[in-house]
């Protein structure tokens, strides 16, 4: 396969079981379009999915894929990419998966700056377990486990990424099909860890962070005269708090991906059928 890859080639024959209207449909479509637009095909693409409604994405897409355990998708994707740098690696999961149980990994995956794309389908709720508060839920958002709301400030994922030394930080919205695909495409093309927080509304359990809310409140950076290469500008917008943005907030033009900083460029899958030449030197070292 090559240039004639269409985004539908990335679709599996499993029918999604997401609720009708779920934001995850749009998020996934944009990912497939971006993969096709950047010249990838299912045989050179590896998708790692977390656990959650969002995590089902691995099943609905067609590519090499692993649907792992809750919160650990980023380490898996990192391992895949380091073992075979020729693969296009895309990691996707929910806000609970990425910012709660997997938060520790998020910080370190960002620091490593491995050349992969991380898409968080942020619905500000635990969808799969039927509506508990997530780390991005609003302070007063009432759920079955937080009848008065969490009464703690939500995590600001973009700020967390920035503080961890991110080289690419973007935010997107699943229902703005064109912009969303475009932003994911930029993340794929970024030389390093391309992080995109995608608002993917949960129509069943979250009646606050709805399509209407995002449509009305999101400011498209394309129309806001924003320079994504200006760190101070990015920092200001990320920490602002009263506005939410869509688009690439920050991209470090000087980003050097892990492969280059660590000299990991070989495909590790190819090994001889006995000990490699030079192995006896390892023994001699112990003289």
């Amino acid at each position, binding site marked *: *396969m090559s240039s004639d890859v269409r985004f539908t080639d990335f679709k*599996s*024959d*499993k029918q999604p079981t997401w609720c009708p209207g779920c934001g995850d449909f749009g998020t996934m479509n944009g990912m497939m379009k971006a993969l096709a637009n950047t010249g990838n095909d*299912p*045989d*050179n*693409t*590896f998708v*790692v999915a977390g656990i959650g409604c969002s995590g089902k994405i*691995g*099943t609905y897409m*067609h*590519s*090499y*894929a*692993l*649907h*792992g*355990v809750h*919160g*650990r998708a980023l*380490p*898996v*994707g*990192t*391992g*895949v*990419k*380091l*073992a*075979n740098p*020729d*693969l296009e690696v895309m990691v996707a999961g929910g806000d609970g998966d990425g910012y709660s149980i997997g938060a*520790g*990994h998020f*910080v*370190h995956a960002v620091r490593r700056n491995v050349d992969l794309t991380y898409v968080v389908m942020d619905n500000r709720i635990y969808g799969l377990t039927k509506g508990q508060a997530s780390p991005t839920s609003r302070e007063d958002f009432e759920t079955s486990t937080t009848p008065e709301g969490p009464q703690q400030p939500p995590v600001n994922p973009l700020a967390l990424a920035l503080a961890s030394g991110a080289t690419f930080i973007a935010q997107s919205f699943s229902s703005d099909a064109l912009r969303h695909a475009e932003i994911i495409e930029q993340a794929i093309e970024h030389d390093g860890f391309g992080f995109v927080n995608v608002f993917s509304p949960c129509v069943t359990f979250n009646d606050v962070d709805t399509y209407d809310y995002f449509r009305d409140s999101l400011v498209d950076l394309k129309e806001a005269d924003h320079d994504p290469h200006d760190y101070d500008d990015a920092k200001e917008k990320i920490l602002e708090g009263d506005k939410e943005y869509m688009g690439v907030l920050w991209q470090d033009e000087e980003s050097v991906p892990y492969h280059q900083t*660590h*000299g*990991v460029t*070989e495909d*590790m*899958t190819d*090994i*001889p*059928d*006995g*000990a*490699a030449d*030079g*192995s*006896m030197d*390892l*023994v*001699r070292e*112990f*003289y």
Partner: protein
Amino acid sequence: MAEDLNWAIGGEAGDGIDSTGKIFAQALSRAGRHVFTSKDFASRIRGGYTAYKIRTSTEQVQSVVDRLDILVALTQRTIDENLDELHDESAVIYDGERSWEAEYPDHITGVDVPLKSLAEEAGGAIMRNIVALGAACEITNFSIENLDEALEKRFGAKGEKIVENNKKAARLGQEYVAENYDLDVDYDIDETDNDYVLLNGDEAIGMGAIAAGCRFYAGYPITPATDVMEYLTGRIDEFGGHVVQAEDELSAINLALGAARAGARSMTATSGPGIDLMTETFGLVATSETPLVIVDVMRSGPSTGMPTKQEQGDLNMTLYGGHGEIPRFVVAPTSIDECFWKTVEAFNYAEKYQTPVYLVADLALAVTEQTFPPETFDMDEVEIDRGKVVDDDTVDEWLDEEGRFRAHANTEDGVSPRAFPGTADGAHMSTGLEHDELGRRTEDTNVRIEQVDKRNRKVDTAREQENWDYREFGNPDAENLVISWGSNEGAMVEAIDYLEERGVDVRFLSVPYIFPRPDLTADIEAAENVIVVECNATGQFADIIEHDVLQRVERINKYNGVRFKADELADDIEETLKTEAKAQ
């Protein structure tokens, strides 16, 4: 048994005990002598007592004994800690100029050497341990030139001057003893022309991994497994591989899993607390049928336990850990050289059967250095079997009518084809959810049974195809049968000799395969007395053997944090047999 010499240096952690001991061990090895080292150490960096012990002989030694001939004591506590092991012929080297007044029983020979002053004379107080090594050379009639090579190896990178100063320090120690003492302890350290290599179990595992084609390693530092990661760092890169220091063990195993999904031979190593975390992902490894080698270098638990002490307490965890029922292999090397070979085997099992393999070693193997003839690790003997891997040309055989790759095909032997990402038309999904042949989630009752059976069938296939044998020692016809696993082999093999001298005949089976494992029914039924020896309190291996054979066995358990010693084990076995005889 050949004459052996037992030497030790002890002091406070941070005193350079380990590196000094290692230099002497290397000098002995260079002189064609066999060496077996052990460490008594505290986990604090300063303030704790620590000692490096060497047993050396012209013949292979593979155990420690309760006897100390030469002791370099940098602190009084070093003497106190070892009083039981010192005897009439022992010599203690100490520095009388230091603030402490060495106290030791009259029957021991004290050799007071101004270590610090002589070191300063050679160029710096930091070399006082080296002065002590020189003194030890004189007492044992061991040629000081042997030290030179070891000093060059240790300090070569720091420049010629440093090497020369150290050589001088050693000579000052030697001369001081020669001029001031006329000792009647005489230990002659004979030399041979043999060349040996000196390495510990962690290094053997690391070297085995590289030899086996492992190219990806992820780990999180933990005693006593860290040496595996430190060994691989830098070296694996020479072979096109890479080491990642993960943020925790949850990440380490998932990084390793990712690399394995990509098609690399991949490994992680940790100790008990890390296995606790990795257990989260263990079922996923098995269910997604990913080949992965997970090393558990056991230490004393539970919880943080005694992190620098020996124990074989994780057998049940590696056999049964994880929710649900997880097919796996558990392999436990019984000696340092076997750490190398069993690592090679572990990778082959992992890939041939697309199943996680626990390689279970223990602290006694990990931190012990032992000499071997280099051909013990003959790289030409290493075979790599990657199992059923398909490529662009052969992938077609495994596509269904609609051209989809059957990554979990329900085959007769249970093993499905494997397509590395990048293989044309091999794209497929893998998941920890129950899935069909294509890797797609399902809760269909028939498919569930089919896939569970298929995964378990791989273990059955392996049981038939591989050689799950034990290692046998002693008298094959003896009525006393001793069984053990892991590092106890060395002490037990030597205990057989002691027992023979006392007229006790023993057959000894050392079992490196925990699952699948050899069927010991016939061996146990043929014996009069059966004893299972292991470093834990409850007898985890004894439990599974009793369960296999439906017969009670005697147990020797040690769980004070110290490995078995050959002479002690001989006593224990004699005692157990006596008690048993009385009961009958």
